[in-house]
């Protein structure tokens, strides 16, 4: 199975509508600087929920969660860990 971080990047490619290739965005680069809009972040959230079969709680529905690939990966990892 593809590693989780790659799956997060794949979701960003499909739904992030970034103004640059996701492969050129480092884990700690700002996704907002790369073109992620507030509306696109909603789509990214929903797509990540589908991809990982999780649900983002209110506490993670924050701008800071979607700040970077690393931030998204950590959020997903915490949800998967709590589901285990």
């Amino acid at each position, binding site marked *: 199975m593809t590693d989780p971080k790659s799956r997060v990047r794949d979701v960003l490619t499909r739904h992030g509508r970034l103004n640059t290739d996701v492969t050129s965005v480092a884990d700690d680069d700002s996704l907002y600087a790369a073109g992620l809009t507030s*509306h696109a972040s*909603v789509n990214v959230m929903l797509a990540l929920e589908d991809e990982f079969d999780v649900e983002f709680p209110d506490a993670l*529905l924050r701008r*800071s969660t979607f700040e970077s690939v690393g931030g998204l990966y950590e959020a997903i990892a915490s949800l998967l860990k709590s589901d285990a």
Partner: protein
Amino acid sequence: MITGALRLSADHPDVGVRIGMDLVEISEVARSISDFGDRYLRRVFAEHELLGCRTHSGDPDVERLAARFAAKEATIKALDIADATELTHIVVVNAANGRPELQLLGVYARRSHELGAFAVDLTLTHERNYAAATVIILTNNCRPGEHR
């Protein structure tokens, strides 16, 4: 110094003004509805908004919903909330005269109270490919550095 008709800082030194504006591509909202359906609608819009934004055939009125999304983002900017959460806690309602108004709940209501907000106004627009909203909030307290 503010010139012109609105000399808010000179005539009302204790009143602060906060403004937020957002622009949304209507096709993006349409795509979200197509991709995620009801999950998208219910994560973003309050029940009241969903009921009020239907076409004659009962489908979601994408243009009006896009304008309401813009209103939520404009509100977040005006309130200067670093980490906004539930979008459904910012609700666009219609006054008796049909004008849109804002209803703030949860963290947005608390932030509004912290700022000393006493008046909020909202305007929406949509045409062809885009929807936009502007929110203005008047507060009792000026932020540091604001003109008096």
